[in-house]
Structures are given as structure tokens and as C-alpha cells.
């Protein structure tokens, strides 16, 4: 079996384990490339119908192209879509215009997520994170327990091997992050998008010598120089590059180990 097929099968396996293990599941979906691969894999896992809701945390700083894609995908795939905005923080005036990116990301993404978790009482979240995205994600488990405050106890993670997963004790509160894309690299994601012809938003393709490699909030996401305007060209570009994928994501580089601090508090 090819490497891509192995990755696909492992992800499907994980999605099915999650569905079997947890009662109330939600799947964050950012409309980005990884999110769309995850959506695709979930359809594979459940033979064409995703049996849980998909969540978009809308920071109100989204690219218009992404919002268009969201509208298209919702009907195309027949998603049970939940859209969440942290209205309370917006009302308080939290925004990139006035606050640092760590605070805004925390308020508009992490806190918004906590609000959804409280509202829907989800016991599992299916995430699209990958080990190669950043060094703290490289230490993640497939099933990662989070406290009732959404925190990640990275200093004492449960053992996990042979595709057997630790579960929090009953009544412990909190939720479990199930992370089916952990083994994938950015390169694998693109090979798979090509193989399966997975629809993705147009921002990933170069226009005027620039393209987005990783997409977040508009004010803090910067395109990288590139001429890759097709999936094939992106694959060739990635094969040669040594620039990290998230170089264009400002919150990652705000201070030393910014990602560790963000993620410990529950950022995806």
C-alpha cells in the first residue's frame, strides 16, 4: 500500500474509533487545506455522510474567499454547520486593531471554542493538526485529553501505543481531542488533495507572485512569494523549500515558545 493510502486508512481508523468511543462529537473546520482533507476523510470513514456537526469559529477577521468557500461547501457536502463568534469579546472591543495577536487569537478562537464546548457539551473534538506544523504539535497524541478549562497537560500525557487510546475517567469533565492528521505532513496533504481532487479555497494558489501556505485571520496572515498556481506546482515548490509552513502566521512568532503557551491553554 502506498504511503498516502496508509495515512488515509489510519485517519479513517481514528475517526471510526472516535465515533465509537464518544457520544457527542464536534469537528472544527477552518475551510483551510487540512480541514478540507479532514472533511474528506470523515466522509470516507462514514461512507458518505458525516454523522456529527462541523464547527466554524468565525473570528470576524476571515478572508472573503474563505467565507465564499464555506457557503459553497455547506450545501455541496450537506454539512451540519455550526458557526460560532465570541460576541462577548467582540462587544468588549477585542480586535487586532487594538490588541496583540496572542490575546486576540486566544479570545476569538480558544475562548470561542470553550464557549461552544460548554454549550454543546461535546466530549470529543476532531482536529486537523499535524506534527510537522510546529514542534509542540510534534509531541501530540492521537487521543489527547483536555481539562474542563480546555488545557493541555503536555508535561504528563497518557501513554498511547498499538492503536490503543487512553480515555479520561468517567465524570472527569473536559474533552478529548482526536487528531487523525497527526502523521501527515504538509507535502502529504497536497499529494492527497491532488490524488483525490479535493476542493480547496483559491487563496492557496499564487496570484501576482504570492500565495498563502497557511491561512488564519486576515490581519495576521501573510502570503509568501510563490509562482505555484496549480496543485502540481505547489507540490514541486514544497519539495524544494526549507521555509516553514507557518512562517506567515504572526501569532506563532510573537514571543519565545508562543505556540506552546497558546496551545497549553487550548488553542488547536
Amino acid at each position, binding site marked *: *500500500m*502506498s*504511503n*498516502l*493510502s*496508509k495515512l*488515509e*486508512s*489510519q485517519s*479513517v*481508523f481514528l475517526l*471510526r*474509533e472516535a*465515533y*465509537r468511543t464518544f457520544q457527542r462529537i464536534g469537528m472544527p473546520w477552518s475551510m483551510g487545506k487540512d480541514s478540507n482533507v479532514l472533511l474528506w476523510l470523515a*466522509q*470516507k*470513514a*462514514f*461512507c*458518505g455522510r458525516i454523522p456529527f456537526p462541523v464547527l466554524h469559529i468565525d473570528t470576524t477577521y476571515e478572508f472573503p474567499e474563505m467565507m465564499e468557500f464555506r457557503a459553497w461547501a455547506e450545501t455541496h457536502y450537506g454539512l451540519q454547520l455550526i458557526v460560532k463568534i465570541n460576541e462577548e469579546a467582540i462587544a468588549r472591543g477585542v480586535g487586532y486593531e487594538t490588541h496583540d495577536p496572542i490575546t486576540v487569537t486566544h479570545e476569538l478562537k480558544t475562548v470561542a471554542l470553550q464557549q461552544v464546548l460548554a454549550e454543546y457539551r461535546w466530549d470529543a473534538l476532531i482536529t486537523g493538526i499535524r*506534527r*510537522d506544523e*510546529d*514542534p*509542540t504539535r*510534534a*509531541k501530540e*497524541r492521537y487521543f489527547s485529553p483536555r481539562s474542563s478549562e480546555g488545557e493541555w497537560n*503536555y*508535561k504528563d*500525557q*497518557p*501513554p*498511547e*501505543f*498499538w*492503536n*490503543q487510546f*487512553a*480515555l*479520561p*475517567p*468517567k465524570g472527569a469533565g473536559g474533552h478529548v481531542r482526536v487528531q487523525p492528521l497527526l*502523521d501527515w*505532513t504538509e507535502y502529504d496533504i497536497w499529494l492527497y488533495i491532488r490524488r483525490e481532487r479535493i476542493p480547496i479555497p483559491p487563496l492557496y494558489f499564487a496570484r501576482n507572485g504570492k500565495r498563502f501556505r497557511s491561512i488564519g485571520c486576515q490581519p495576521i496572515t501573510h502570503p509568501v512569494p510563490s509562482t505555484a498556481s496549480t496543485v502540481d506546482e505547489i507540490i514541486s515548490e514544497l*519539495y524544494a523549500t*526549507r*521555509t*516553514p509552513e507557518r*512562517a506567515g502566521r504572526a501569532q506563532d512568532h510573537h514571543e*519565545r*515558545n508562543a505556540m*506552546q503557551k497558546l496551545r497549553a491553554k487550548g488553542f488547536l
Partner: protein
Amino acid sequence: MHFSTSEEVVPIVVIGHVDHGKSTLIGRLLFDTGSVPEGKAEELARAAAAEGMPFEHAFLLDSLLEEQAQNVTIDTTEIRFRTKKRRYAIIDAPGHKEFLKNMLSGAARAHAAVLVVDAQEGVREQTRRHAMLLPILGIQHIIVAVNKMDLVDFSEGRYREIVGALATLFQELGLPEPTSLPLSARSGENIVQPSLQMLWHIGGPLLEALDSVPSPPRLDALPLRFAVQDIYRRGTERLVAGRVETGTLRVGDELLFWPGRKRARLRAFAEWPTETTPTEASAGRSTALILEEEIFVERGMIGSSLERTPIEAREFPAKIFWLGPDPLRVGEHYELRLVTQSVSARVLEVDRVIDAETLSVQDSCKPGVEPNEIAEVLVRTQRPLAFDNASEIAQTGRFILAREGRILGGGIVLGARYPRASLPPIQSSPLFWTEGEIDRYERARAQGHSGAIIWFTGLSGAGKSTLAFQLEAQLFRRGIWAYVLDGDNLRHGLSSDLNFSSEDRRENIRRAAEAARILADAGSVAIVALISPFRGDRRKAREIAEAAGIPFREVFVHAPLEVCRARDPKALYARAERGEISEFTGVDSPYEIPEAAELEIPTHELSPTECLEQLMKITLEAITLPNRPSLREDPAANI
């Protein structure tokens, strides 16, 4: 550097004692092969300088602030890189004893291991413990990297000393001979380029050693094992969702589902998008099955082909490692998970505990296994479990033990017995196994002995019934429950519908074995006296017992045909010779001499007392409770 376009990813774990330089070695490898993202090293160097710390290559892996501050790896990290030949997933494992659970979480998915040993410190406790875990993790390919050679002046003598010590260790552990090389991770000697400091070293640098690890073996040629994860409904169809763990599955194949041996034919696969649905699925593939027959299949079951089936049993020997935090206690219940099966289980006996500090083996009847220990144990499950020996199929030969969702340990099945002849599939559905609250072991403890089957085989007139009833009486008088199932008596009731054709004889034996199993399960010594002339039938009886974890002892009660004929207690030989009865063993039907009987009793040579002594001996040995050494040493004295 020119990189490979090969898609294959080989996972390799770096293990060894704390501080021996594992993370530094990986950091250096990434650095020297140009695999570090642009700006990353500079960023780390700046951050370290700001905190007044020296830059360590290990920081490329040890990304947590806590790790960098203490210069210790807490949790395992996986990082990708490419050589000219292929892609690698390099897994950095922590060496600190306290983080063994994290080391295992990383190492368990590796195909090969680099064992790092500090040239100054030499082999230490975690060097041994990590090496001991490799066979349990199924890791066959090992590279020994003797690191920090700069600290021993690149001395060939010191290198040879350490390699020699490891060769002995590996031999004791039954590990294959490793590839060894000296290096200095910090200064980058012998990592990517051969070292000028160690010209005495023949053989390439680490990178070359990695590239010469053979590719992971393909699993499609192994026997089929399909692990059922869930059942989905699509319209009126039932989809059996799961993964082909090993082997290959094709539309039209006949399958058996275990435990339970239920048979069905694969009508089609169900996948999305439907256009790419295959007609064949091989090892590793997640898919869903649509079966021809409406059989009862549920999560946990393992699908196999009709041949090369898994073992179905409730008891098996295993080698386990224990993580804790609390010790494993003999007799306590844990959740055992094997692929997607989950059953309640406990350890009945701890046979050997291996100490990683001294490598000494304690042959013991210990009450438990301490955290970080590796032990050989006997496991018993509450319901039948389908599995393989790990040496045959690793995927279905390994399991974890958990409690309240927390994984406490893991292990592999070692030396369980496969059924030699396949049993007929069970047709009735749904089929359940109900378990009472009291099981055999509680009964055994209460009555001071466990049950067993003593199976007497031999010609008519050899002395089976006489001996059987004498043994029964002897046992009973010593307070041991015993009951004879005599061939003649069975024919009056349980088997009154059967004649003496070889088919009916087989069925008669199956019934006797099942009845004996029930008696033994209830705690009695079931003494079966049956001519049982055919080896195959006796073997089946043994399998019925062993699958249920019941000791089975075959006793060949032996006397030459002429002696039996002369004895002829029921005048049967005479009648057979006159043709009044047909298919009589020894006259017009053969008797197959046992090849592997536990005891042979030549009744024409031994006195009745001698016969009985020998029978008592094997019976008492079979019913002795585990973990009671006094019973083992002098069984008779205690009873």
C-alpha cells in the same frame, strides 16, 4: 543535497539512557542534512542566548520550555526528514526512567531503533530496559551508536569495550546482532560524513546505517485478520466497518468471525466515493464489508479465512511490561484490549520477572509486577478472546491492560497453542457467552484444587475403566472432587443415538470432551475412559480443554492385544470375532497409538499400586493451584 522522491516513510526511534545524547544526535542529523527549516536554528540560538543558556542541538526536538530549561526530554517527538534514498519519521524518545510511558508511546510505532550509549558512562539501566523492550515492540533492526566519543579521545579500545558489553546483553535478550558505530553527536563526527577522528572505524556514518535498514515487511502475505470496529447502517444494508490488519481480502471470500467461528461470504466492500470502491483490500486498509449471510457480527470480532485461523481461548502465556503507577496485582481485574476487542482479564501467575538493573531473572510466584518491570505471566480473560502469537502476527498478538480508561501496561502473546484441526463453524446466531460471577479460579481457591481432564485411551480390556474408578476413589478420599465419564455409561444416555462408525465415534468423543470440560470447569477432575482409537479425535478433545484453559492429560492405558483378548472382561472380543459386532477396535477397526500422551501405563507390567501412584502424581500436578509453591513441592502432603 539531492533528495529521494520515494514515498515510503520508515519510522526509526532513538532510545537509550537519559542524557546519553539522543536528542542531540537527531538535532545534529537534521542540521547536517539541511533538514532544519530556514531560520529555525538562528531563532533557537537567539532564544537560548537571551536566557543565558548555551545552544543545544537537542532544542530542535526538545521544544518545550521545561525541556530546554532542564536539558531533558519529557515527551517523545516525531520529526520527518529525507535522505537520497527515502523518507524517515525519526522518533525521539526520552531516556529518563520516569518517562518510560512516553518512550513507549514513541517507540511502539518504530520499525528500527538507534540505541545511543554514552562512551564515558557505558551501558546503564535504561540502556538495558530499552533493549529489553525491543522484542516486545517487535523491533528487529537495531543500530548501536556509541556517542560522545570526543570525551574518550575517540578511543577505539573504549568503543570496542562498549560494543562487547552490548553484544553480551543482546545475546542474553535474544536480540539480533546490531550494527554498531562510534560518533560524537555534539561535534557532528560520523553523523553524515565519515569521521577523520576515527579512521579506525570501518563502515559508514549514521546516515548510511539508517539507509541500510531494510524496508518494513509487507503484511499482505500473512494470514487474513480483519478487525471489526463498528457496524453502520446504510439503508437496509449492514456495513461491517474495520481494518484489514494483515493479509488480503477479496470479494467472494469465505470468512470466519472470531470469537465464535461464525461463517459468512464477502459480497462487496462499501466505501465512499462508490466509484473507487475496490474488489480487494490488503493489509492496512480501512474499509467496510457487506456480508452475504445475516450473521451476528459486532465490534471486537476478528475475521479470518477458513484456514490459518487465530486462536480462540481464555488463557494464554504472555510477556508484559508494566507502567503503573500502581503495581499489577495477581488476580485483580483489568481491561484487556487487543485490536478492537475489550474483555475483563487478570493475571493468574507471574512466572518470571526480569530486573533491568541487574538483568537477573527471578523465577517467582510473585504477587505482582512493579512499575517499569518486565515479566512473563499467565493471563486469563473472562470471555473467549481471539488472538495470535506475536511471533506469527504482531498486529493480533499484542494487547494493553487498562483500568478506567488509563493504560497501565502492555504485552505480547507468547507460545499459545494453535488448534491443529479446524473446528466446524458455529451456525446459530446470535451466539452469546454468558459468564457467571464465580469463575473457575474462585471455585478452585475455595476447594483447594482446580479441575482437570484425565483422558484414558486404550484397547478394550486394557484396564481403562478399572483404573479410572480406582483413581476416582483415591482422589475422592483425599477430598478432591472427581468423576468418571466412562465410555460404556455415556452410550446409555448422552450418546445413546450414536453407533460405532468412525463419524459417530468422533461425535461421541466430542460430547465426552465437552461434558468433561463442563465438569472440570465446575472444579472436578473429570476422568474420561474411552477407547478413543483415533489420534485426530483425541487431539480435538485436547483442544476443547485447552481452549478453555483446562489442563488435559492423556493417559495411554496399554496392554498388548493378546493380553486384552485374553482378559476380555465383557466378552466383546469373542463376539467381534464371531462377527456379532462390527468395527470393533483391535479386530476390524484400527487403534492409533498415542504419540504425545503425558503418561503411558503398561497394565501388564505394573502392579495396580504402581499404576495408581503414577496416575495420582500426574493428576495432583495438574490440579495444583497456581502460586502455592508448597503444593508444588510435595502435593500429597498438603491435601
